[in-house]
């Protein structure tokens, strides 16, 4: 009797372990392991273009005191923050329409359509933007047709924003829509009931209630934009040196993997802090 019970308990534990196993394996193999390697690498040395295991602080010193690093850092942060803000503002009316004004059927179709962009490679989408924005490209000709003369739009901040919003907008819309759809509609009724007119209800109730989703959407947009290499390279033309471009350059020039590791670790730390701060803000009460 007892042994039967024990056997059952054991088999249940084994079953649980079977499902839990992939998580630590995955974390160890693809996250913690590389992370430890990256940290270790940042203390190595490069001698005659050869990586040499070492423990020295020179890489950190070099990068953290370099003006070019901090200017790239500030530029990257500014670009990512602008892209996150822009994606959030563009997505919000769409998400509101999807959540409040569409039939459930139309909502499903539309949310499905926002997944379609992910079917084509991001690189392909950015290349096609290049054709649109280039000297004598479609956009420039269209603008000229309505009497606005522009030069090439490539390698401008506008091109950067277009590329990054292309990357992040679908995701931001989906996250915001899920957040607005799961909002307790009674809260809106309660606001009306307490004298809140329909013009104020958006800012007094809907947006504050959906804040976690809105902040989370912006956070994802920031994370993707902060680490993006494709848009900065192909729509910015390398004119705007971001941290990703800096990493590529550092590796290419003289095999400086350790210094690139320092830049990468600084990026990871920044994103970690941004994520923590955003989540704290999302769930904070006003």
């Amino acid at each position, binding site marked *: 009797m007892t042994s039967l019970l024990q056997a059952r308990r054991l088999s249940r534990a084994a079953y649980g372990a079977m499902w839990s196993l992939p998580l630590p394996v995955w974390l160890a193999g693809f996250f913690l392991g590389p992370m430890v390697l990256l940290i270790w690498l940042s203390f190595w040395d490069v001698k005659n273009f050869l990586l040499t295991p070492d423990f020295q602080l020179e890489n950190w010193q070099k990068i953290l005191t370099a003006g070019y690093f901090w200017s790239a850092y500030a530029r990257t942060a500014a670009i990512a923050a602008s892209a996150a803000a822009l994606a959030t503002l563009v997505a919000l009316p769409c998400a509101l329409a999807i959540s409040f004004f569409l039939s459930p059927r139309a909502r499903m179709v539309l949310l499905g359509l926002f997944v379609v962009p992910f079917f084509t490679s991001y690189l392909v989408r950015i290349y096609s933007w290049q054709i649109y924005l280039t000297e004598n490209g479609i956009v420039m000709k269209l603008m000229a047709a309505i009497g606005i003369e522009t030069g090439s739009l490539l390698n401008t901040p506008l091109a950067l924003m277009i590329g990054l919003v292309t990357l992040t907008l679908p995701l931001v819309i989906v996250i915001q829509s899920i957040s607005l759809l799961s909002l307790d509609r009674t809260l809106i009724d309660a606001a009306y*009931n307490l004298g*809140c007119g329909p013009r104020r209800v958006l800012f007094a109730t809907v947006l*504050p209630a959906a804040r976690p989703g809105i902040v989370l959407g912006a956070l994802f947009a920031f994370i993707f934009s902060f680490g993006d290499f494709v848009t900065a390279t192909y729509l910015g033309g390398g004119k705007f040196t971001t941290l990703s471009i800096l990493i590529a350059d550092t590796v290419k020039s003289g095999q400086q993997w350790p210094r690139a590791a320092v830049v990468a670790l600084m990026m990871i730390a920044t994103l970690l802090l941004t994520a923590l701060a955003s989540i704290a803000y999302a769930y904070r009460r*006003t």
Partner: protein
Amino acid sequence: MSQAHISLKNLRKTYGPAVAVENLNLDIEEGKFIAIMGPSGCGKSTMLRMLAGLEEASGGDILHQGRRINDLPIWEREMPMVWQSLALFPFLTVRENVEFGLRMNGVGAAERKHRAQVWLKKLGLGEYADRGIDQLSGGQRQRVALARCLVTEPSVLLLDEPLSALDAHLSVQMQGELKRLQRELGITFIYVTHSHSEAFSMADTVVIMNKGRIEQAGSPEDIYLRPATPFVAEFLGGSSIFGCTVRTRKNGELVLESADGTFKCDAAQSSGLTPGQNVSLVVRADQISITPAAGWADNEVSCRVIGEEFVGALVNLRLETGAGTQITVQLQQRDMQSLDLETGAGVTASWHPEDGHIIAE
């Protein structure tokens, strides 16, 4: 004649072919505690939502102090509601929740804060003003929901099953507090519930609804002693209902014929009844006695015991007659013990002729 505070005149609500509220007429006096009761789907919540403006009436009028408010939008009705889910704003602190209605009505920040604090204190929440809603207990949240409504000093408060989420002990405590608040403030409470104990312990007037109609409206005592329809008697529970036909009426006594035998009844309440008419005879559980054998009283039915349930010191004994009528008898625990009954045992149920209540069909 004084004007009713709130009047519903021929109020209707239909969803396509489905009728939620049918031809409702009700006058609510100022400063009264009205409980609206009925089984789920009876239209009680729909009625409340029409009052608040959350649902549009399909027909009829809603009058507030004589003024028709059917077309007034929700945000101008000034009828705050305590919601079943409470619907407190999770993104605001306790104080900000209470201030919300004042803020929407353009009250300045300093006065807002002062008035919110007064109400928070009054409801024993003074020290929780800066907490979040998720840091409060169920009873405390309940009070925040009340304070949020009352701070705007409305003349009427709507309550939609506000206590249903609380455990029994807390619910009873809140019933006392609600009644006290209503008396002190002297404002009209319109309280929707499916709970008998809530309705009967607090309300001045109880309205019983069924299938979109009002079955009976009256004082709790009135409804308890004199149910107007078989539905009311059945819904309140604790009564046995016999379907009867009037046979004769003489010497101040009414004789009724039923599948369970012939019953005598006090004729005082039977004006207008004619022989041959179908009526329901309602006898409350506390008015029925049990004897082991027949031959002791006027109205006797022999039954079989089918079950019993203990309610504190009382026992509800469930009986079934030969004709299949269900009878409920309320006994003291000690009487039950002396009777020493088992399920399936035969007993005789009886009651005095003056204790039967007749409902004409």
